[in-house]
């Protein structure tokens, strides 16, 4: 049985809660970009993506939100695990992932169905994830914390 079958109000309750969370995360990304939050705020951002992922996993029909937030959480973990230094490129990517999540939530509210998220964002997140895997492997071989240059997500 779908969660919404036994509780018809659950869908709107869920969308309200994840949209509010998404707006908080967007504000945090902007504050990090402006330098007004400490690096410890990345842990809050990671927890936010984790919560979006967990909620989307349990609700039916939220696969795109699940995939987007799961990939974004892995990118933030690159900073929280001190694999890469945060950078404007990384924050830009995270901001795009939060923005896309909010769009998905808003479209789901309008149409009752959550659409897919953009292929280009998915590709950028996957490129970043691959870069982080390589950087983590290099770290295990004795290299230090790596930069996160714009080239990683611009596809060059």
């Amino acid at each position, binding site marked *: 049985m779908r969660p919404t079958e036994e509780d018809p109000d659950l869908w709107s309750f869920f969308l309200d809660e994840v949209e509010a969370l998404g707006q908080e995360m967007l504000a945090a990304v902007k504050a990090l970009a402006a330098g007004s939050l400490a690096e410890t705020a990345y842990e809050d951002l990671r*927890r936010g993506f984790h919560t979006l*992922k967990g909620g989307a996993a349990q609700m039916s029909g939220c696969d795109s939100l699940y995939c987007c937030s799961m990939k974004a959480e892995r990118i933030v973990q690159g900073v929280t695990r001190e694999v890469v230094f945060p950078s404007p490129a990384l924050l830009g990517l995270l901001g795009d992932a939060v923005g896309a999540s909010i769009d998905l939530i808003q479209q789901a509210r309008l149409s009752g169905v959550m659409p897919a998220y953009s292929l280009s964002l998915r590709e950028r997140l996957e490129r970043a994830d691959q870069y982080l895997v390589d950087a983590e492997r290099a770290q295990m071989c004795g290299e230090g914390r790596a930069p996160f240059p714009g080239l990683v997500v611009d596809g060059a």
Partner: protein
Amino acid sequence: MKILVVDDFATMRRIIKNLLNTLGYEDVNEAEDGTVALPMLHNEDYEFLITDLNMPGMSGLDLLRAVRADSTLCRLPVLVVTADANREKIVAAAKAGVDGYMVKPFSAAVLQSKISAILARTGQGPLEAAAADKDETN
């Protein structure tokens, strides 16, 4: 059976509460994190704790450690809920004395099987009662 559900995500608390109600567990309360949950556990007679691991403030792991370190709560059955089967987290929870874990998404059937298995293992469940009945009749 009186159950406390701890999760910072209200939707998840509501889903778990709905599932528990479907399974016939009506006495279910909620807390948004470990700091709210711990005094509730002290002040009321909860028989089962279901907690998320990933919470701000006092995490599920910290709550579990606090429960196991407390002589009045240490035998409370604890089931943790997690969004991913991260080996490090599950091992940490096992070391801290968790009784079982469940990865999202999960169904009412999975939730019931986890609860039943934990209660049977901790000597508080229907399987134990059935075994005791069987012993008496033999």
